[in-house]
C-alpha cells in the first residue's frame, strides 16, 4: 500500500517551550513526542535502502538504492557540492552547520543533521542547543541524535523526545542503529523517531565476536523492529513515497 507523505509544516507550527518540556517525566515526554510524530507523519516508521558516496568517489550500498547520501566530511574530497549533485547525491549527512551545508539545502539537496549529546547534560542545555537548530533559516530534512561516547538509555530517550518537541519544523527524526544498537533504536520510536538509519541488506548478519555490533538489518528485521514499536512499518522510495511492508 502506497502512502502519501504529509505536507511540510507551516511556520505556524511552534516548538514547545523548553522549560515546559524539561519538567516532563519520562512517560509524559514519550507520549507527547510520539503524539507529535503521529500528528505530523502518522503512526508509522520507515526505513530506506540507501547507498553512500565515499571520499574516493566509489559507492557503498546497493546500485538500485532509493537514496544516495554523502557525509559532509567527504564533500571536499569528491569535489564539492556540484560534483556531489552531479554524482546523484540527494542527501547530505552533516555533523555541523557550515556554508556548504546551507548551500546544499538551498540547492535542494536534503540535509540530515547529526545532533551530538553527552551523558549528564541537563534537558535545559539540550533544549537551548535545539532552539538554535530550530532557528536556522534553511530547511533541515531530518535530525539524528549522535551520542558522544557510550549513551545511557534514558538520556537517549529523553533527547529524542526533546528533538521531536523542540523542532517541529524538522520533519524527520532518525534512529541510528549503529550508534544506539537495535534495542535502543527501537525504543526511540516511542519517543518521536520516525525512521531507521541503518544499512538494509539482503541476508541477516551473524552478530558474533568482532561483528557483534553490525548495524545492518534485512528488510524483514527493519520492519519487525518498527512493528514491534507499535508502528506501521514502511519502506521509503526515491520519490519520497512510503509503502507499507506486508
Amino acid at each position, binding site marked *: 500500500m502506497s502512502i502519501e507523505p504529509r505536507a511540510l509544516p507551516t511556520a505556524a507550527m511552534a516548538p514547545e517551550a523548553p522549560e515546559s518540556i524539561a519538567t516532563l517525566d519520562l512517560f509524559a515526554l514519550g507520549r507527547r513526542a510520539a503524539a507529535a510524530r503521529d500528528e505530523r507523519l502518522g503512526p508509522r516508521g520507515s526505513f530506506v535502502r540507501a547507498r553512500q558516496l565515499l571520499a574516493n568517489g566509489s559507492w557503498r550500498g546497493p546500485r538500485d538504492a532509493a537514496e544516495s547520501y554523502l557525509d559532509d566530511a567527504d564533500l571536499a574530497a569528491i569535489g564539492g557540492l556540484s560534483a556531489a549533485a552531479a554524482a546523484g547525491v540527494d542527501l547530505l549527512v552533516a555533523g555541523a552547520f557550515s556554508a556548504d551545508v546551507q548551500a546544499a539545502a538551498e540547492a535542494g539537496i536534503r540535509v540530515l543533521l547529526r545532533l551530538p549529546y553527552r551523558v549528564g547534560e541537563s534537558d535545559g542545555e539540550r533544549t537551548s542547543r535545539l532552539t538554535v537548530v530550530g532557528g536556522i533559516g534553511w530547511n533541515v530534512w531530518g535530525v539524528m541524535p549522535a551520542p558522544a561516547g557510550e549513551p545511557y538509555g534514558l538520556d537517549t530517550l529523553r533527547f529524542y523526545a526533546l528533538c521531536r518537541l523542540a523542532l517541529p519544523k524538522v520533519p524527520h527524526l532518525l534512529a541510528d542503529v549503529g550508534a544506539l544498537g537495535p534495542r*535502543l533504536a527501537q525504543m526511540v520510536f516511542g519517543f518521536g523517531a520516525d525512521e531507521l538509519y541503518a544499512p538494509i541488506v539482503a541476508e541477516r548478519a551473524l552478530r558474533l565476536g568482532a561483528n557483534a555490533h553490525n548495524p545492518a538489518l534485512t528488510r524483514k528485521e527493519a520492519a519487525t523492529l518498527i512493528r514491534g514499536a507499535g508502528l506501521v512499518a514502511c519502506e521509503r522510495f526515491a520519490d519520497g513515497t512510503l509503502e507499507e511492508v506486508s
Partner: protein
Amino acid sequence: MSSFVQIRDKVRAGEELSFDDGVALYAHPNLMELGALANEVRERLHGDRTYFNRNLHINATNVCEASCRFCSFARLKEGDPAAYTMSHEEAWGRLRARVAAEDPITEIHIVNGLHPGLGFDYYTELLAGLKRIQPGIHLKAFTAVEIFYFAKKFGMSIEAVLQALRAAGLDSLPGGGAEIFAGRVRKKICDDKCTGDEWLQVHRVAHQAGLRSNCTMLYGHIETAEERVDHMLQLRALQAETGGFQTFIPLAFHPDGNALMKLPGPTGVEDLRTYAVARLLLHNIPHLKAYWIMLGIKTAQTALWFGADDLDGTVQEERIYHMAGAATPQVMHPTEIVRLIQNAGRTPVERDTLYNVVAEGPALVSDKPFRRQVRRSLEVVS
C-alpha cells in the same frame, strides 16, 4: 479481555491480577501507559531506591549432560573444544584475587553445567574452600536444575542435598534454570533437564528449609505471551505459599552460538514490556532485577523506569551469556553502576544478597583503584 483501565484500577486498589489481565497487558499497544503503571508499583514498593551489589560469578564447569537448545555455554563432555572444569584451586583463586585487590565483594554467584563426572564432594569442597578464604562471603550457588540433578545422580533427597550444601557453606539459591515452565516449550528447548514442577519443588523445599532464592524466566525465543504469564503466575503462587523468593529476573534470550540462532531474540520494546508486565503481575515478589549482562547497559537502565529496582552487581567474569553473544563488558565498576542509577534519576543503594543495606548516600564512595586491579587480576587468572 480486561481493559487497561480495569487493570489499572485493580493495580491501584492493590488487587491481584488474573491470567487474562496479564495477557491483556502483553497485548496493550501503549508501552508508555504500561510503563507508567509499572513504575507506580515500583515507586510504591521502593520509591527511587535502586539496588546493586558487589559480586563475583564463578562458572566452575561448562561440561553439561543437558543439551538445552538455547544454551551456548555448555559442552557435552570433557575434551570437547572449549570445555573446561576448574580445579578447586582455580575457582578459589578467583576469590583470592578479589581479596588481594581489596575488593569488598559480598556475594559469589555460582552456576555450572551438569557435569556427569564430578562427585558431590567437588561441590561441597568448592563451597567450603571459598568460606575458608572469606568466611563472611555469601554463597548464592547452584540452580534448582543443579540441585535436582545432584539429588538424582547421588541418590539423595532434595532436602539432603540442600542440607549437605548448607553445611558446606551454601547461603541461598540463584534463580536460573526456570526457562519457561510450559511443557510444550520445555519439550522443544530443554527436554532433558528437570520439569517446571520439579524446578518449583526444589525452591519450595529450599524455602521451607529457610533458604531464600531468586526466580527467573527466559523470554524471547519460542514461547507465547500466554506461556510467559502462566510462568509468572506459577512463581506468584509458590511465593504466596512460601514467601521465599526475593527477586524475579526476566532473562532475555541471546540467539548467537546456539541451536536457536535463527530466532531473532527479543527486541528492546519487548524487554521493557516484559519488565512492566512482571512488575504488575508479581506483586508479592519484592524485587525485579534488570540483569545488565543480558539486557545491555542501556536497556537495563531504561528498565529502572519500567518496573525494575535492581541492576544486579559488578558481576566479574560472567561466561554463560557472553558465550551466547552478549556484547556487554564482563565487569562493571561500582562507580559506574552508581552513575548509571543516578543518571536515571534514581537513588543507588548497595545491598548484600539478602537486601540488607551495605551503603547508601555519601557512603557510596568511589574506589578508583578497583577497576585497574580487577583488570590486572582477571588477566592473571584467565
